[in-house]
């Protein structure tokens, strides 16, 4: 059963940056955009498994640090012409606190 778990305060994640949340099964990258929206993806690029958490965040995309694929934060889809997708994790922001559904 998955449940909402508090992971961090919003201010602990840099704007246009991310933090890594380690669970027993996977690493999750939690991103914060310029407008303070938060997104969470499996920290694993569909191309060669690069850590997306370490990429540059712009708009609602992140650029993988290894080979520059652009991945959409909302849906985990690679931008054309690359093809692939990364799992999204449900995330919510309440009273300045970030929760993940894990």
């Amino acid at each position, binding site marked *: 059963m998955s449940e909402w778990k508090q992971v961090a305060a919003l201010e602990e994640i840099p704007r246009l940056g991310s933090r890594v949340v380690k669970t027993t099964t996977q690493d999750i990258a939690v991103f914060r955009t310029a407008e303070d929206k938060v997104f969470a993806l499996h920290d694993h690029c569909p191309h060669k498994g690069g850590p997306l958490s*370490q990429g*540059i965040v712009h*708009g609602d*995309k992140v650029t993988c640090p290894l080979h520059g694929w652009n991945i959409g934060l909302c849906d985990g889809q690679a931008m054309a012409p690359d093809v692939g997708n990364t799992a999204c994790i449900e995330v919510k922001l309440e009273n300045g606190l970030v929760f993940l559904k894990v």
Partner: protein
Amino acid sequence: MEKMKLVVIGNGMAGMRTVEELLKIAPDIYDITVFGDEPHPNYNRIMLSPVLAGEQTVDDIVINTREWYSENKITLHAGKRANKIDRVKRIVYAEDGTFAEYDRLLLATGSKPFMLPIPGKDLDGVIGFRDISDVDTMIDASSKHKHAVVIGGGLLGLEAANGLAIRGMDVTVVHLNEWLLERQLDDVAGKMLQKSLEDKGLKFLLGKQTEQLIGQDGRVKAVRFKDGQEVPADLVVMAVGIRPNFALAESAGIHCNRGIVVNDTMQTYDPRIYSVGECVSHRGTSYGLVAPLFEMAKVCATHLANFGIGRYTGSVTSTKLKVTGIDLFSAGDFMGNDKTDEIVLHDAVGGVYKKLVLEGDRLVGACLYGDTADGSWYFQMLKDGKEVHEIRDHLMFGQNHLGDAGHKGQTQAATMPDTAEVCGCNGVCKGTIVKAIKEKGLFSLDDVRKHTKASASCGSCTGLVEQILASCIGGAYQPADTKNKPMCGCTDLNHGEVRAAIRERKFLDIPTVQRELKWRTPNGCASCRPALNYYLISTWPHEAQDDPQSRFINERAHANIQKDGTYSVVPRMLGGITTPDELRAIADAADKYKVPTVKVTGGQRIDLLGVKKDDLPKIWNDLSQAGMVSGHAYGKSIRTVKTCVGAEHCRFGTQLSMAMGVKLEKMLFGMWAPHKVKLAVSGCPRNCAEAGIKDVGVIGLESGYELYVAGNGGIKTDVAQFFCKVQTDEEVMEYSAAFLQLYREEGYYLERTVHYVERVGLDYVKSKVVEDAANRKALYERLQYALQGYQDPWADRVAETPKRRQFELISI
């Protein structure tokens, strides 16, 4: 709000390219309707020759399928000829009565083959070479008839003749001039081409003027010339030129003068009506090649999108014949005139001919036959108007921007087998690239990079990819405009313009730059943000805010990311000199954090590879305790100063190279730059520190030092160029620092010193640093000011909580 209506007349390459560009930048402002004469969707007209030659099918050359039109909600009237424009009511009518209203109208009616006005021109079997139906007619004729005559020995004529010959016809090419392709080749190259084509079985009648086509039962039977000679002909293809198709525009009262007259924004005399492609007359010129159409399309799209930016100022074109196995290239004024000089290489037996035409210090024309490997390099210089006097003595032998690895002796793209690897980084072979170009309709280097990844990593195969592109799409190939290339898709400004704006308007942070310079994206992209960050901190040191989120991960984490997401740690070892204590501390750290690999680097220091990110602050802390600091092995910054042993120990040494290297490396600590910067100091001319391939190389002599700049040992080895001779250690520091500061202030992001110096010229750099003492001192002071108070980033991150946070994992 109701959308505006855009009607496009002409479903060819120019019109649809404009629509594509428009959809890219403003997808939602128009309802689009397209009228096309032909019953097909938009196809790649320049690939008709390969279709005729049987190398491709019609389906292969479709650029946009009918699905594309419906996906983009474009109404396509294929096979409906627009025949009337009512400019008052703003309605376009087609022959069958279909009509469409417009707010903006785009005329892209292309051109028509010019048919010689001679008796017999209307007989069956007499055609031009323009569209799919012409190709169908030719293919059909080749299965039923024997003799074909092609009138016109230009590009199109020769491609038609070649195709018909491959399909088994007996082909004669008739040409008015004394040699073939006189608009693309000089007489020598033209004769060499003729010989190659004769070897393929084509026949030529040169200097012949056609008088009449003779028919029998309504079909053409023979061609008769002015001199009375006759040749049999069951099919006559007229390829003597094209004429802009502007009849419709003229009938609507739009100003035409041998083409639809447009201004630099592609607007006609009716401000609601734009025009692009072969039908226009721009500054008195009409173009019959596809590359200029793409430039027009881009400009026109920005105006249709109401951005109001971009001007089309005309094109320099290059040509390439799409006949398999024949390599020729020409561009610019290849014939020359009494103001020009020529450099010529002619190997008649080897089948190679190269002619370069120079006017003063600039290349103005090139004509290559047999070996066109350097065509794109010459074309680039020609387009850029680059001064070539510094490289004039080896200009003929090509420089080409191919890397050193893997491409020697196999640089002729056209003759490479499909299985040959082109891009060694991403393992892309020629066949994959050719397939992508043909199937996806790619036209530019960027397209090929995106779709195949070829040349997208180190870039050393860029030249080769450009050649493959040129050999696949011929005249449609247009090398990237290096001068005005926008920084990235977020802006139309180039690096130089952005740098100038940051300096002149004193921008201090990235959001301001993006807002003031009207960035198209909310916060840039992974290409422009690191560049902007560098421009800001290098232009306004101690004033502009460094933005870690706009730096690539390596600079954000102060360590190099590895393929598995771990990092490498390289402590600085000034001049490559270490101590037993440092080595012990490194060994202890390697044990404590279970570092899987310990490696000695090429920069004379030690690399600890495979460190987990959350261990970084801990390992740095241990190394800091032993007095070590970050080596910046990860940055667009000063890397190392490599030294040889020098006069301290070496029996040949003339100068204390180790001490000199340590002084330089200390001076430059914390220096960010457009790209990485490496130095070396050798104690004598034996040059054991390999100073000849460094950004700044110092070589000790009995009487002082020689300085070399702009060397590079990477993708393409470039030997550093002699800069000046100096006497003292202090002078070495001042001259090196001044050169590097000039590069820091003027270099574009990701431009190594070799490319910066190539762009601005060594003479210019010398004039700023060597010859102008006051300017040199000012540069030196500016660098010192910029580096003042720089803190070791490792110690900094160990100490401070917010900066340290990025290294901490959240566990749940």
